């Protein structure tokens, strides 16, 4: 079975631009979470979606938004990009909100210049 997939792999944007990152969960998984990993640090929780509803939001500004589609795939949008948004954006999927293992995708490396 395919694991969590993310696209694109790498992305370079300019300050002020907008970006959309995509994630496809493992088949049968209904929950998707997004994490930001700045170079040299551990991942930080951004959003969690379950059954197309937002179930959690981390300490990130309103420039960050996300949604989950009926097929459980998800998009993360970031508006008005700042240099500090440069990071690896990780998507994780799990069966649900309980004590299920989260499986991470390889991430999208975003560079803002």
């Amino acid at each position, binding site marked *: 079975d395919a694991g969590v997939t993310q696209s694109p792999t790498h992305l370079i944007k300019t300050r002020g631009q907008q970006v959309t990152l995509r994630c496809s969960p493992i088949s049968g998984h209904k929950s998707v*979470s997004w994490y930001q990993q700045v170079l040299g640090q551990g991942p930080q*929780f951004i959003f969690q979606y379950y059954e197309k509803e937002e179930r959690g939001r981390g300490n990130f500004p309103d420039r960050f938004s996300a949604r989950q589609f009926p097929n459980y795939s998800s998009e993360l949008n970031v508006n008005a990009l700042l240099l500090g948004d440069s990071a690896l954006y990780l998507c994780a999927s799990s069966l*649900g909100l309980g004590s299920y293992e989260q499986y991470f995708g390889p991430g999208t490396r975003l560079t803002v210049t």
Partner: protein
Amino acid sequence: TQLLEQSPQFLSIQEGENLTVYCNSSSVFSSLQWYRQEPGEGPVLLVTVVTGGEVKKLKRLTFQFGDARKDSSLHITAAQPGDTGLYLCALRTAGNKLTFGGGTRVLVKP
């Protein structure tokens, strides 16, 4: 907000040596997970520890949960170059959200 501190931040050793990395919190946690992340990949779950004093072994990796459930350690015996990576500890909070420590970067030189 419960924070996790990992130490050391970076560890470089020769193949065959042993190493230990630590994860500490100021508060008691109910369960702790350890992940390994290799370059270009997402974190992969190694183990979940839930009971104070618990010890789990995964081949050459030994995970220990402190009796007071405020600290945990990961010990690797006879490290191999394939053990190179970023080791992360994480708390699983309500709703299956993860809070990660800053990580320990391990480099095992052949």
